[in-house]
Structure formats: C-alpha cells, structure tokens
C-alpha cells in the first residue's frame, strides 16, 4: 500500500533510517514512511522534502525505483533548508510530498545504446535510471556512463562508479576539472569524454544531468557526434514550490519545470537554453 495521500499538498511523515556522508557537503538519506507504507516513483522524479519549522525543498530521488521499501535522496547542502536537512540524523522525521515531475524515458530507449552524462551532483538524479537500465541490461546496446566532477575528492558515488566500471557490460568514463599528481585518471571537461564516443550516434539515447551550462555543451557535443536532439534528454532545475504546477514559481517559458519537467526532451527546450532572461 502506498504511503502517499491523494492531496499532493499534504506532506507525509517519513523517518530517516540512514544518513551516508558522500562528500563534505553532500549526503544521502534513506527514509521510510512512518506508517510503514511503500513508496513508488519513476527514475528522474523528485520529492518535496519538508524540514519542520524551516521549509521545503525539491530534491531528486536517487535510489532504486525497484525498491519500494524506502526513498533515497542525495542532497548538497547549499541553502537554508538543505543545510537544515544536513543537520538531521537517523531517527529524525521529515515531511515528504511527491513524487512529482516527468521521468527519464528508460523503456522508450530499449534497443538503443544508452549514454548517461552527469556533472557534479547531477549523477544523483541519473542513478535511478542507471539502476533501471542495468536491471534490464539485455534490452540495450552499449551502456555508457560519463561523469565529470570538480576534483577527484568531489566524485560522487565513487564506490558505485568503481563497481560499474568493473562490469563487463558497461563503459564508465570519469573526468575531473583539475587534479594533482595523485590522480591518474582523466583531467578535462566531460564533453571531452563525449567526443571520444564509444556509442552508435544514430541509435543512441542520451540522458544528461548537471549544471545548465554543462548540459548545453554536452548536448552540442552529442549533436556534433551525430546524436539527434530528439534523442537527448536533460533534467532542469528551477525554484519549485508546489510541485504540481499550481503556484508558477518554476515557470520556464511555456513550461512549469515541476510538472512538464524536470526531465525534458532536448529538442523541445533547446532554444530556451540560450535566452538569458529565462
């Protein structure tokens, strides 16, 4: 039985089961519904997390969509609410509304090569789609994960990336913007990994998540490689408040990011990327 009420504005109390420190400012929380119910979501969707007395913040779900027993969020502590979230520990309670928004069309990519391109904490919203893809590995051609971080110390889900890299049916490329001599991997922007290819551009679906500027350059590089704009999907971030397209806080041109996004097909929004006022 699902824990989530029919009223999307009503938060449901969840108990934090486990907090995992990922980076110095980034953490992963595993939560279970206080009433013991299950939680279903699609890869790419987000929840509104409410820290009682502080406020609410939209955070993408970073767990496995197949695991309905808990909900997992990976958050970077940058603002008032996320810093308050960072202060919570196992046993504490928060309010959860969701899941909201559109999802990564993993099933629609069956038969294609699947390329995930993530930058920084953008790997978190992509992780559920990677789990889903790997659970249905035989339905795809090549599966490629390309990840860019600031420094080697800022690599998110490092152990998981190492595990994925160790698989024989998945290609993983990691690069950092800068490093010192201890690092023996790639240094440079993530677009450079895209340029190296390793996938069939005509039969590729790409999911891209990271800072907007990075997504723009990655999409351009994918296009240069021959991947159609309609095969590229990006996840957008805006100031989402209600989560269900009522309040208009996250309006982006003709779209509400919370309802029409956060996952958008690139050809539908590409022109808006270059409009400074948006």
């Amino acid at each position, binding site marked *: 039985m699902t824990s989530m009420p029919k009223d999307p504005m009503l938060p449901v109390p969840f108990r934090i089961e486990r907090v995992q420190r990922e980076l110095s400012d980034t953490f992963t929380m595993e939560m279970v519904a206080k009433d013991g119910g299950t939680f279903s979501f699609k890869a790419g969707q987000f929840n509104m997390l409410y820290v009682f007395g502080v406020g609410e913040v939209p955070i993408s779900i970073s767990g496995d969509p197949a695991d309905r027993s808990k909900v997992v969020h990976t958050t970077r502590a940058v603002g008032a609410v996320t810093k308050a979230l960072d202060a919570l520990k196992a046993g504490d309670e928060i309010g959860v509304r969701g899941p909201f928004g559109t999802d990564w069309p993993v099933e629609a990519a069956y038969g294609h090569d699947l390329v995930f391109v993530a930058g920084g904490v953008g790997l978190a919203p992509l992780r559920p789609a990677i789990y889903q893809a790997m659970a249905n590995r035989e339905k795809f051609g090549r599966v490629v994960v390309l990840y860019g971080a600031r420094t080697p110390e800022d690599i998110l889900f490092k152990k998981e990336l190492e595990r994925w890299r160790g698989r024989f049916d998945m290609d993983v490329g990691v690069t950092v913007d800068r490093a010192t001599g201890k690092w023996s991997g790639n240094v440079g922007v993530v677009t450079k990994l895209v340029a190296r290819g390793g996938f069939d551009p005509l039969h590729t679906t790409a999911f891209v998540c990271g800072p907007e500027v*990075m997504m723009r350059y990655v999409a351009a590089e994918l296009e240069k490689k021959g991947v159609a704009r309609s095969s590229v999907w990006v996840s957008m971030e805006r100031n989402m408040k209600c989560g269900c397209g009522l309040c208009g806080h996250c309006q982006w041109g003709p779209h509400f990011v919370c309802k029409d996004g956060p996952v958008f097909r690139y050809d539908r929004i590409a022109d808006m990327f270059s409009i400074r006022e948006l």
Partner: protein
Amino acid sequence: MVQTETLGRVIDEHPFFQGIDAGLRELLVGCAKNERFEVGEFLFRNGGKADKFFLVRAGTVAVEVDVPGKPPIIIETVGEGEVLGWSWIVAPHIASFDARAMTLTRALSFDAKCLLKKMAADPALGYEVLRRFVPVMAHRLQASRMQMLDLYGPDGEDRPAKKVKIEVVKAVKGSKGKNRKADALLAAPEKPLKATRKADKEKASKKQKKAG
C-alpha cells in the same frame, strides 16, 4: 625506407591526420619520429622551447602547472589519439605548461622547425596542418573557459564549516517547528549564528536603554 613506411602508416592511422592526402603525408613523415616516454618523464617543460608537437599513440600525458610549495595542478590529460602541443605554431614558440607522462607513453613527434619550413614552402601543407590544429585549439580554449566557470559548485573554503553545521543543528532542534527565526538564521549561514545572536542582544539592550 621501412621506417618511413611505418611512420606514414602511423600518421594515416592517427585520428588527427586521418584522411590526409598521401603527398602531404610524405612531407610530414620527413619531420616525424617515434618517441617513448617513461612514467614521470617530461615531454616538454614550461618556459622551454616549443620545438615539437606530439601525436599520442598510447598512454596518457598530464598537462600541468607547477605551483611553488604545492603539488603541480593537472589541468588536462591528453591520451591516445590526441595531439599535444601547439605553442610551436605561435611565436615566440615557448611552452606554457609542463607535459608529463602519467603512464608509459608512445608518441610520434614532429620537428617544428622542419615542419614550419615545409609549411612555408608548401601552402597546401600549411593550410592542411593549421586546418586540423585550429579546432583543437578552439576546443581547448572552450574547455578552459568551462573549467574556469567552476560549474560543479563551491570549493572547500566555501563549504559549510563544521562549526556552522553545529549551529545549524542547534537552530533546527531548537525551532521545534514553531520558531521561524531559525529560518532566517539558516538563510544567512555565512554570518556566524552566534554573532547574529550577539548582535540581536546588543540591539535589544540598546532599545532597553533608550526606553529607560
């Protein structure tokens, strides 16, 4: 002769000169030689003469900047199938970075003096070489700009210090869902919370004094 043929084949197979005209390739071969660099060996040094460029055939090279008193900062890695070094094209032909082999590296090096002479004598060769170098230079300039933007977030110094975090914990726990002041305090975490409280107290005592 055998070596010339081998070098020609290597040039043909390397992505940088892929599809080059056979005649032009022969001119390139005359300026090329195979080189091997052990781990830690420098291909060129910052401030040194930029009298070569390299087509990396195998291995990884770190392009780095030496920072006094600190480990060198790697700003880019160049690997198999890529080209390394373009200061040889631009006067005063001085290398601006160090290039160090991170792994055993095999590369084809080109003598800049020899090639520049041939390029000056044969504009078709000059055009062909520059036509291939300009996108590499543009791409690297764009990449450098992106790296400068520091897209992936705040650096170590800007991250929440442990002390601030403890203050945030107290504010959250103390709020019990009622105290909206915690919200305002958390919204400006750059200002130490204790300092804010102290300032509030001072304000209150000033008010009291005025009232008194």
